[in-house]
């Protein structure tokens, strides 16, 4: 009787507290979900903003013109003359579409609908295919950034003429060209094939991409072998004493040093003292490898520590030397972890801007670098430079460059995740 009573009260109490416990769990879950979704929401706002501003930069407005490759104008001696007045050829073609425009001022306004690159494009076309001489071809030529902005709806037509970069007359012509099917948005190849430029429609990320590529090449070539070698030495060979503790603390410290300090160090050591060229991916790569080295050392040491000691004992027990144990067993097993660390380090370097400003990689450089010693910028620095430009057309290019940078980051992190997956499967 007493026992069953006790059992009853226990059951009641458990049931009563059960409700409270579940309520608590639900509240905790709700808070967790709220936190996650807040984070995701900010991320979504960021991406939507970026994509809505940036994707238009992947297209460029083109004007189709009938170009007359006139023999007397372009090849007076029989051969194609590279110094001929291609500008006049393009200009005349555009004017022929608007025969009523005779005023010199208005004619200049008309010509400015085309990008300055239009005449170069025609020249390149003829140089590539001299058989065009004497024929008339329909050619799509790049429109100026202002036309591009009107077409993309980035210029407000309702404000008075002097408050916008496009005149009423130009708007009229644009509408006429549009009605005639002579204006079209096409894939913006210039964005990927050109270096930087003062003209937004000519500005591309090729130079910055190549600069980043050469820089990361230098970084990985230096930081990976050095980092792995240091990690192997510290884990497998170095005696454990006060010195190794000191080194350990310093490496961890180095990983936390603000990157701009490495930039200053690079400026002092590589440029001022070793007289390496300013603005070069070589110096950028050197600075970034200093920055990445501690990350790679730490990741590599963790990877080495994760190798089961029983495997090492087995090899030692068979009479393998320390070298053989490291190269036959430890290194192969630790390699995926080391590579993951290297990729994460590279991804970090990819986004570094501050140290590059210090070593002069922030200069305005038009030419696409062809080697590690050519002056160059890097992708994040290019973003910084474009974000600073007042033109509306540069704003969309800034977003486009950010999208490209994020795509690369995503690829690298994906590679790191895939590698870690493979690593985990081993055990």
């Amino acid at each position, binding site marked *: 009787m007493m026992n069953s009573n006790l059992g009853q009260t226990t059951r009641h109490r458990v049931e009563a507290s059960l409700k409270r416990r579940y309520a608590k769990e639900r509240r905790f879950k709700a808070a967790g979900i709220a936190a996650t979704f807040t984070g995701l929401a900010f991320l979504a706002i960021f991406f939507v903003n970026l994509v809505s501003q940036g994707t238009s930069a992947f297209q460029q407005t083109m004007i189709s013109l009938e170009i007359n490759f006139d023999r007397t104008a372009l090849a007076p001696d029989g051969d194609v003359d590279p110094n001929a007045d291609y500008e006049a050829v393009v200009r005349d073609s555009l004017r022929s579409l608007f025969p009523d425009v005779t005023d010199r001022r208005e004619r200049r306004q008309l010509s400015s609908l085309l990008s300055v690159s239009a005449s170069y494009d025609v020249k390149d076309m003829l140089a590539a295919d001299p058989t065009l001489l004497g024929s008339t071809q329909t050619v799509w030529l790049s429109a100026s950034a202002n036309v591009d902005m009107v077409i993309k709806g980035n210029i407000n037509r309702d404000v008075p003429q002097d408050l916008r970069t496009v005149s009423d007359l130009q708007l009229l012509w644009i509408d006429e060209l549009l009605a005639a099917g002579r204006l079209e948005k096409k894939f913006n190849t210039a964005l990927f094939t050109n270096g930087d430029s003062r003209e937004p429609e000519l500005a591309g990320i090729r130079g910055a991409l190549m600069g980043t590529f050469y820089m990361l090449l230098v970084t990985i070539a230096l930081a990976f072998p050095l980092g792995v070698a240091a990690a192997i030495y510290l884990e497998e060979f170095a*005696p*454990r004493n006060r010195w190794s503790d000191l080194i350990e603390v310093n490496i961890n410290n180095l990983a936390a040093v603000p990157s701009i300090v490495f930039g200053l160090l690079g400026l002092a050591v590589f440029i001022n003292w070793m007289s390496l060229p300013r603005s070069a991916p070589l110096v950028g790569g050197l600075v970034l490898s200093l920055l990445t080295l501690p990350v790679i050392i730490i990741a590599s040491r963790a990877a080495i520590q994760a190798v*089961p000691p*029983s*495997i090492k*004992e*087995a*090899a*030692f*027990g*068979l*009479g*393998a*030397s320390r070298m*053989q144990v490291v190269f*036959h*067993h430890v290194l192969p*097993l630790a390699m995926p972890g080391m590579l993951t660390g290297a990729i994460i380090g590279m991804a970090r370097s990819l986004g570094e801007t501050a140290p590059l400003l210090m070593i002069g990689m922030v200069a305005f450089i038009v030419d696409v670098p062809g080697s590690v010693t050519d002056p160059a910028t890097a992708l994040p620095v290019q973003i910084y430079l474009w974000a600073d430009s007042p033109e509306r057309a540069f704003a969309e290019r800034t977003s486009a460059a950010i999208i490209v940078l994020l795509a690369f980051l995503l690829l690298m992190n994906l590679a790191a995740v895939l590698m870690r997956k493979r690593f985990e499967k*081993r055990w």
Partner: protein
Amino acid sequence: MNGNSMDDTNSDKPVGKAVKPGHEAFMVADNVNVWYGDNHAIQDVSIEIQKNQVLALIGPSGCGKSTFLRCLNRMNDSIEIAKVTGLITLDGQDINSRDLDPVALRARVGMVFQKANPFPKSIYDNVAYGPRIHGLAANRAELDEIVYTSLERAGLLQEVKDRLNNPGTGLSGGQQQRLCIARTIAVNPEVILMDEPCSALDPIATARVEDLIDELSENYAIVIVTHSMQQAARMSQRTAYFHMGKLIEIDDTDKVFTNPQHKLTEDYITGRFG
């Protein structure tokens, strides 16, 4: 029970006969001491190891059996705080002398560990690893020969001959341990040290490994650490009983188990502690 009044637990000298007559002492440990920092883990241990015999090391856990075993192929070298003193000779040669490289020593004194630890490589490469690093085979045919005979002697060949390229880690626990034994005998050592080789195996796998050890004792000197007294009684010719870092008793296995001379030994084998 014991006729001798040798139940003085403070005696420093181990009881029993160190050498079985008719067998030559092949490996001799004389007055070996081991310290892990301040922990005096092995105290004045002298043992003779003979050819074609199995010597079992028994004793409660933490008494220093593994530590002593690891002295015999200098595996304690890699433990920084470990300090080993005393003389250990292999065929008359001091194993701690500068003339004998630990790498060369370990080719002559092989080791099998408590937990089977095959390399994450193929079965073939596991067995071929030792011969490869020591350059024991002149060509592929010789290496094949070594791998096949080693697997055969480890009693594993029939089970794995169709999948020599599969990873060694994919075998069952007992097979893995026999693979580790095959890997050890592929180097053709003179002494084989085994540290509780069956403690992670089921009874059937254990029986197979015990048979194998029995066969191997025809050609090798074997030292085996075991926590199973039945196993020691079944397989070994001589048994050494360790207690708190000291060698208490060493004698013929029959004698140790039927008529222990020391009270501590008797307590341990009759199950009063340990």
